[in-house]
């Protein structure tokens, strides 16, 4: 399937406008092009001044780049969102149940629903977590579920990000900037707000305070520091929650209790929203040379004196080979039929699937199992002969490391490009918060592939973002 064939445009642009987009269409038709161009520049100035930047390594030039922001919103009707929301809740419930099971009785393996190898031989499996009980049995407190759409009622989950999904600051700031630029539009549109994300996040984190927490839990955000590509987001979230933003050197663990160094001495810390990978979080347990985390965090957590969010070892659930089994997890743990579909995925570790993948590589998307950020990925229809040849070699030598999926005809939304307005492919990352209950702010982050025909929406690969509207009525 090539991307040119029967692509679903969510707006129905330009002829056949779908109802949720009526207002956007009227707005686009009424505002002169020059004014929109002016607003685009204004948006860029706002982003720069607020400092909403994203560092992209491996490239020269400006170290603090802006992610391009597109003015045309992506709109979901309330009913569309409700069905998505239910599916997301169900999926994340199952993922948390799965991670809990993996570190306890492994019933899903004993029931023969998942190969043992996939769990125990997985680098994301952390034996250090075996037998540890967590508040509300939650491991992935903040999950970012990447969704794509191919038709009015066809949604697929592309991947589950259970470790440290980023991008939520763009969800909130895109709205903020849109409201500053077009206040009038919002007065008429009835868009569900997203600005309370910080409050919801704080509520979630407080609800998973460790059993030995002495009183009101002290929550902090742990960042690798200002040189991290998502630093802006870390500062943003700390700010929105009104909590301290700490670096590893600010923390220390004494007698299995975590403290931060304050001007008046040591202050006890109960919950850490950490934006540092497992490998770097605790040099006593993982990489000994890491300066980013703090020695002893894992032991403080194990002793019931500290909650790490997300939990160490949550990554076992967002592995691309484990992904294949998520619908089965939903049936197994919840006894329900999955509301959201997986993309049909070929597991290249199976000989038949590998053979199929090799035979159809030019029409498939092949992904490294442990890769993220659009690296280690081949989009068959868009790849050169040379790229395909290299990938085939890798596939044959390390089939276990790859899965393959059909190239989906991702939906499009009209987008400003150099030549005017044109349809561009989008995805959606809603953020699902799990604590005493599940909280989801309506919408999520819409990423858009700005190059014509491109399906890669990652910001590290030239993707942009859009404000995502869920209509209240």
């Amino acid at each position, binding site marked *: 399937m090539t991307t040119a064939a029967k692509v679903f445009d969510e707006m129905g642009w330009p002829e056949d406008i779908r109802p949720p987009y009526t207002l956007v269409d009227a707005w686009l038709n009424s505002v002169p092009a020059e004014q929109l161009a002016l607003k685009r520049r204004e948006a860029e100035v706002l982003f720069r001044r607020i400092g909403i930047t994203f560092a992209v390594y491996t490239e020269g030039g400006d170290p603090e780049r802006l992610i391009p922001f597109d003015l045309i919103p992506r709109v979901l009707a309330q009913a569309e969102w409700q069905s998505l929301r239910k599916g997301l809740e169900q999926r994340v419930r199952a993922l948390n149940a799965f991670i809990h099971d993996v570190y306890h009785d492994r019933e899903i393996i004993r029931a023969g629903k998942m190969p043992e190898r996939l769990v125990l031989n997985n680098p994301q499996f952390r034996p250090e977590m075996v037998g540890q009980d967590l508040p509300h049995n939650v491991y992935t407190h903040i999950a970012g579920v990447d969704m794509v759409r191919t038709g009015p009622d066809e949604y697929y989950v592309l991947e589950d990000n259970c470790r440290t999904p980023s991008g939520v600051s763009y969800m909130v700031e895109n709205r903020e900037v849109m409201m500053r630029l077009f206040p009038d539009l919002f007065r008429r549109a009835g868009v569900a707000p997203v600005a309370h994300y910080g409050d919801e996040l704080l509520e979630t984190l407080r609800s998973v305070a460790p059993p030995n927490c002495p009183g009101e839990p002290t929550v902090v955000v742990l960042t690798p520091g200002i040189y991290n590509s998502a630093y802006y987001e870390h500062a943003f979230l700390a700010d929105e929650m009104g909590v*301290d933003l700490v670096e590893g050197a600010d923390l220390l663990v004494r007698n299995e209790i975590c403290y931060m160094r304050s001007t008046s001495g040591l202050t006890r810390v109960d919950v850490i929203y950490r934006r540092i990978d497992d490998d770097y979080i605790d040099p006593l347990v993982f990489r000994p040379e890491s300066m980013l985390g703090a020695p002893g965090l894992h032991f403080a957590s194990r002793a019931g004196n500290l909650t790490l969010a997300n939990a160490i070892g949550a990554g076992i659930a967002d592995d691309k080979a484990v992904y294949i089994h998520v619908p089965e997890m939903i049936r197994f743990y919840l006894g329900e039929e999955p509301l959201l579909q997986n993309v049909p995925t070929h597991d290249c570790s199976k000989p038949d699937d590998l053979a199929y993948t090799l035979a159809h590589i030019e029409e498939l998307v092949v992904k490294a199992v442990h890769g993220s950020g659009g690296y280690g990925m081949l989009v068959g229809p868009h790849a050169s002969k040379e790229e395909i040849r290299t990938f085939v070699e890798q596939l044959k030598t390390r089939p276990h490391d790859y899965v393959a999926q059909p190239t989906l005809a991702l939906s499009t939304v009209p987008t400003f490009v150099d030549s005017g307005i044109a349809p561009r492919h989008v995805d959606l990352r809603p953020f699902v918060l799990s604590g005493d209950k599940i909280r989801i702010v309506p919408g999520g982050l819409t990423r858009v592939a700005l190059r014509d025909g491109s399906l890669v929406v990652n910001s590290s690969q030239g993707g942009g973002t859009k404000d995502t509207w869920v209509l209240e009525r």
Partner: protein
Amino acid sequence: MLARTASSLFWLARYMERADYLARLLQVAGHMSAVRFDADNNSEWESAIVASGSQQAFFEKHASANPETVVSFLAFDRDNPSSICNCIETSRRNARAVRTALTTDMWEAVNTSWMELRDFEAGEMTEDRITEFLDWVKARTSLVHGVYANTMLRRDGFHFTRLGQFLERADNTARLLDVKYHVRLPTVQDVGGVVDYYQWLAILRVLGARRAYRVLFKGQVEPVHVAELLLLRLEFPRSLAFCFEQICLNLDPISSQDSELSAECKRIAHKQFAELRYGRIEDIIERGLHEYLSELIERCALLGEQIARGHNF
């Protein structure tokens, strides 16, 4: 509050104040050398380097101090950690590290300064543009200081910011006054002469204190009065007495669990303030102004160390 946050706020304000001081210093060097008509007209530029506290680094890089080398070193040199450009850069880096402790207005003031700085750096530096740049630095630093004073909650974060600003200012005022000691006059007879007079006047101009001087002392510029104004006058917001009063006022309310820990910095600050508050200019001059100032500069450094130690930076 988090010790690293306190440290970043302290240094954010220090570097902004330093940028302001360097801009003023370069302006005064220009003014002073303009009234020299003998061959030794690089002396003012040399003294500007001394007053910036960076002789060693400067002479490792440049053979002589002249308008070009000094302006480039103190204003734009990226290898000089205390150049104006690096001061603004460091301020902004500190601000970015503690964004959550800043008000939005404060962050935007610092960040916009940094963005505009990059525009300045991109252009060619003509003499006119340097003048424009130095005025811009003074305006931006005033803005940053004004914005934080007007928007920050009066809690520990504010006090640390204030401490940084006034400790830096104390150090700078002491160094500036000491410049006169290093400037060579053409001959001994010139002491008290026209060149000497204009040099004292220039110091007042750097600190924006010419009018203050007139109001307080009337008449001609007398070195002893300049020294009194810059050291002891509580009414003048760049005097050492004023700076140390601010330091004491902002050190005292900072909350601490362990009063022993922060006792030493408070002792140094209050002792120095008492000395300035009750000192007499005649005694200071008699002991030797240069010696007095050298001691003060050392004490500022010590106080900085003790503030950091006393609050776990």
